[in-house]
C-alpha cells in the first residue's frame, strides 16, 4: 500500500468508521502514528512528569530544568536525531507532531541546554555534562533464552512472560523497602520486556558509581557462555534481600509455574542441564539413574517435573549432605531459572537513553503502557492496545461531537489515567514539597546571615 492509499484508507474509515470497525489494517504506519500523536499521546502529562514541579510559579522553581533534558527521536527512515531539547510543553508537543518519531528516547538533564552544547564547548571548559537522570532498569526476555523453551529471541508468550512479572516484583520491592524509593514507574517496552523509571529526587541525583552499586546489589548472575556456573550464592546464609526474594517470590513461582510450564525436568536433555549445576557428580548420577529408570513408570497423575523436583530436593537437602555447596544448590537452581536478569549497562550510566513511555513499538504496534507493580500478575502483553486498535476505537467514537478528551474513550484511557493518578500526582506533590522546603531552608539561611 502506498502512502497515498493509506491516507485515503484512513479518510474513508473516519467517514464510515461506525460500520467498518475492523477495517484498520493491523500494522504500524507513519500515518497512523501521526493520528496517535495528534489525538492520543499524553504530551501534557509527559511534560508535567519531566518538569518535576519546576514548571510552577514558585520562586524556587528552576525554569531551565525541562529545557536541559535530552530527547532523541528516531524518524521513519531510521534517521536518528540526538540532543533535542524543548522549553515548553507546546514546543515538545509541536515537535513530536511535526517530526512524528517512530521512537522517542529520554536522556539525562544536562548542565546546559543540550541543543546548544557546541556553543558551550567552545568556551573550553568541560561544562556539558549530565547532572540528573532517573535511575532506570531494562529487563529483556531475550536474556532468558537459556531458561525458557517456549520461545526464543524477541518472541514472548504467556508461558514465559511471568518471568518479567516476577522480575518486577523482586526489583520493585527492593527499590521501595531497601532503597526507600517511592516514585517508581514500570512500563511495558512494547515487545519483549519491561522498563523501570525510579523518579525520586534522590534517585535522579545518583552518581554513576552509586547507580552501579545498586545494579550490583541486584546482580547474582556470575557466569558467562563458557562457564556453567551461572549463579553464585556464597556464604552460609543468604543476604536478607536475596532471602526475601527467594521465599516470597522465586521459590513459589519456580515450583508452581516454571517447572510444569517449561517442563524443566521432563526430558533427558532438559534435566541434564539442571544436573549439571550440582557440584557433586555422585549426587547427580544418583538422580540421573533414578530418572532414566522411571521413564516408563511415569503413569502417576502427578506432574513428572514436580515429582522429580521433590526427589532432587530430598537428595540434596537430606542430612547426609554435609557440604554447604550441595545444600545451597537447590537455591542456586531456582535463582538460575527465575532471578531477574538486568541489562546492567543501562542502569549504571547517567547518559543512557531509554525509550519514553507511551511510545508505539514499530514491530508490534503495541503502546508502551505503564504496568501496575501491585497487580502485575494481571498484565497481559498480548492484549496491550495496538496502534490500529486505538484508531478503530477513535473511528467508532468519531461521530460523537462532545470529544474533549478523545484519549479517555479508547482503551488507552485506562493507562493514561493510571499514569496520572498512581504515578504522576503523588510524584508532583512530593516535588512541590521538595521545592518548597529547599526554598525555606535557603530563606532561613540568608536570614541567619543577615542577623549576623
Amino acid at each position, binding site marked *: 500500500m502506498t502512502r497515498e492509499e493509506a491516507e485515503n484508507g484512513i479518510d474513508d474509515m473516519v467517514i464510515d468508521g461506525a460500520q467498518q470497525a475492523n477495517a484498520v489494517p493491523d500494522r504500524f504506519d507513519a500515518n497512523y502514528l501521526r493520528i496517535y500523536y495528534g489525538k492520543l499521546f499524553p504530551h501534557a502529562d509527559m511534560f508535567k512528569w519531566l518538569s518535576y514541579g519546576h514548571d510552577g510559579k514558585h520562586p524556587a522553581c528552576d525554569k531551565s530544568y525541562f529545557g536541559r533534558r535530552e530527547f532523541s527521536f528516531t524518524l521513519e527512515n531510521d534517521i536518528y536525531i540526538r540532543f533535542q531539547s524543548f522549553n515548553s510543553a507546546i514546543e515538545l508537543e509541536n515537535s513530536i507532531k511535526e517530526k512524528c518519531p517512530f521512537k522517542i528516547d529520554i536522556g539525562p538533564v544536562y548542565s546546559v541546554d543540550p541543543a546548544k552544547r557546541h556553543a558551550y564547548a567552545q568556551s573550553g571548559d568541560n561544562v556539558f555534562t549530565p547532572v540528573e537522570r532517573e535511575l532506570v532498569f531494562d529487563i529483556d526476555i531475550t*536474556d532468558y533464552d537459556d531458561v525458557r523453551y517456549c520461545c526464543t529471541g524477541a518472541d514472548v508468550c504467556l508461558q514465559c512472560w511471568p518471568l518479567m512479572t516476577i522480575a518486577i516484583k523482586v526489583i520493585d520491592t527492593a527499590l521501595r523497602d531497601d532503597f526507600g524509593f517511592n516514585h517508581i514507574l514500570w512500563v511495558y517496552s512494547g515487545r519483549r520486556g519491561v522498563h523501570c523509571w525510579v523518579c525520586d529526587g534522590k534517585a535522579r541525583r545518583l552518581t554513576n558509581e552509586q547507580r552501579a*552499586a545498586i545494579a550490583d546489589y541486584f546482580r547474582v548472575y556470575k557466569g558467562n557462555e563458557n562457564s556453567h556456573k551461572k549463579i553464585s550464592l556464597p556464604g552460609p546464609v543468604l543476604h536478607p534481600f536475596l532471602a526475601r526474594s527467594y521465599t516470597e517470590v522465586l521459590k513459589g513461582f519456580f515450583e508452581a509455574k516454571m517447572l510444569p510450564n517449561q517442563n524443566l525436568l521432563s526430558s533427558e536433555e532438559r534435566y541434564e542441564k539442571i544436573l549439571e549445576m550440582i557440584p557433586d557428580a555422585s549426587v547427580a548420577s544418583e538422580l540421573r539413574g533414578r530418572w532414566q529408570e522411571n521413564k516408563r513408570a511415569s503413569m502417576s497423575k502427578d506432574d513428572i517435573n514436580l515429582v522429580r523436583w521433590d526427589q532432587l530436593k530430598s537428595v540434596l537437602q537430606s542430612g547426609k549432605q554435609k557440604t554447604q555447596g550441595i545444600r545451597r544448590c537447590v537455591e542456586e537452581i531456582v535463582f538460575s531459572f527465575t532471578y531477574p536478569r538486568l541489562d546492567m549497562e543501562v542502569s549504571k550510566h547517567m547518559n543512557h537513553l531509554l525509550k519514553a513511555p507511551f511510545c508505539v513499538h514499530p514491530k508490534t504496534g503495541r503502546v508502551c503502557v505503564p504496568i501496575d507493580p501491585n497487580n502485575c500478575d494481571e498484565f497481559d502483553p498480548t492484549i496491550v492496545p495496538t496502534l490500529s486498535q486505538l484508531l478503530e476505537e477513535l473511528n467508532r467514537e468519531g461521530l460523537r461531537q462532545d470529544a474533549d478528551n478523545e484519549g479517555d474513550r479508547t482503551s488507552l484511557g485506562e493507562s493514561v489515567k493510571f499514569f496520572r493518578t498512581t504515578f504522576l500526582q503523588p510524584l508532583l506533590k512530593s516535588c512541590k514539597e521538595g521545592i518548597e522546603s529547599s526554598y525555606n531552608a535557603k530563606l532561613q539561611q540568608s536570614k541567619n546571615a543577615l542577623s549576623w
Partner: protein
Amino acid sequence: MEVFQSHRKSSSNNVSVSTLPLYRSAPPLEVRLEDFELFAMDRLRVLKGISDGLGRGKKPEEMENLVADLWKENMRHPQANEETNKDVISHFVLRLVYCRTEELRKWFLSMETTLFRYRFRFQSSEAQRALMSEFKLPYKAVSNAEFECVKDKLNQVARSMGQTLAAVDAVFYKVPFEEVPELVAGRRVFIYKGHAYVAMNQVVSLVVTQFRSYLSKALILTNSIEYVYKGIHKCTKTPCYRLSIKALIFCKQDDVYQVSICNLACRKWTSTVREQEKDRLAPIVEALCTRYLGPDYSQPNEVGEISVKDIDRIAKTSFPLCMRHLFEKVREDHHLKHGGRMQLGLFLKGVGLKLDDALAFWKAEFAPKVSAERFDKEYAYNIRHNYGREGKRTDYTPYSCQKIISSAPGVGDHHGCPYRHFSEENLRAALVRMGASSRVVEEVMDKVRNRHYQLACTLTFEAVHGSSCDAGINHPNQYFIDSQKILQSKVDGIQFT
C-alpha cells in the same frame, strides 16, 4: 626542605595524632627537580603493583600485605617528615600526569583509592577516628533500641559473609546507602528504607567514598589546567626537549632546580610558569604515564595493515586465546554481543584492519543472521564509533589484558579472558585446540588456579610458538605483534639458509 604538617588535632583529647595526608590542598613545599621525577616513579611502582594485584584477583587480605610491602619498599624513609613529604609530592605530580584522559583518570583514581583504603586500615583506631572527623562525617551510632529491632537482619548479613555478629559491643552507623556504594554493591550491609547499617569494621568504606569523590573532582579540575599546556606542546615540535628532563622546568635559583608543587596543582600554574618551561614539562609528564601503563596499541605501527582475507590465517597463527575464541564464535554464530564486538573489534583495529575492511568483515560475518540493511542500521554506527568517526570522535584504544580480565561477561557473552572466565573443562579443551601438549595444559591450569592469568597466557604463547616470551603478555595486541615477529623471523631464516 620545608615540612608538610600531617598532624591533626584529635577531636576528643586535643592531642595531635599523626594520620594519612588527604591531599586536600597542595602543600607550600619546594622540591628538587630530581626528586620531582624520582618520587613520582616510586609512587608509580606502588600503584602499578596494586594494579597487578587487583588484576590477579587477589583477596583483600592478600592485598593488605601487598600494599604494606609495596609501600615499605618504595616510599619508606627513616624520617617520618621526609616520608610524608614524598607521599604528598609524588601524589601531586602523578595527579598532574594522570588527569589527562578519562582512561588515565579512572586508573589513577582507582589505584589511589585502593592505596588509601589499605593504608587507612593500618592506622590506629584513634587515627581512624581523627580521619573520620576530618571528613566531617556526621553519623551517629545506632541506638540500642534500634539495634534490637534490626539485630536479626544484621546477623543475617554478617553470616552471609561468613562472619558472626559480635552482639555485645557491636557499633553500627546508619548512613544513607549512597555513602557506601561498595558495601551496597557487594551486599555487605543491611539496607532498609534507604539507609545502610555500617559496622565499625566497615567504616573504611565511608571514608574511602569521601576520599574517592574528592579526588575525582580534583582530577577533573587539574585536567582543565592541563588543557592549556597540551596546546603548547603541539606547536613546539623541536626534538631537543625530549632530552630536557633534567633541564630546567621552573626557576633556576642558586644552582638548585626547584619546583613548587603548589603551583602545579592550582588553577593558576600556567600563568606563574614561564612559557618556555612549560614545554619542558610536557615530555616528562608524557613519559611518566606511558612508562607504566604501557603502549596503548591504538595505532597499528609495527606490523602494518591487514585486510579481510588475512584474518583467517593470522587468527590461527597469532591471535591470543581470547580473540581466537571470539573470532571462532562469530564464525559459528554469525553474531556477537556488544562486549564481544568491542573486544574483538578494537583488537582488529589495533592489528591493522582499516575501517572499511572492518565494516566489510563484520557485515559478512553477520550476514547469515543480519540483513545488510539491519547491519547498516544497528551495527555500523558502533564500528565507525570505535574508529572515532561518530559521536565524540575519540579514537578508542584496544583493550589491555587488565581490562579484559576485570570485565564481567554475562549471559550470552563470549568476551573476557578465557583463563579467568572459562570453566576448567572449557579452558582445557580450548588449549588442546590451540595445540598445547598435556604437560603445557597442566602448567597453564596451575597458573590459572593461582590467578596468574597473564602468566597462563604467556605460557600458552611460548608453547604455541616454541619460543620464549620474557616480557610476559600484557596486551592482546602485544601477543599478536610478538607472534608475528617470531613467525617472520622463521620465514626469513628459511629464506637465508
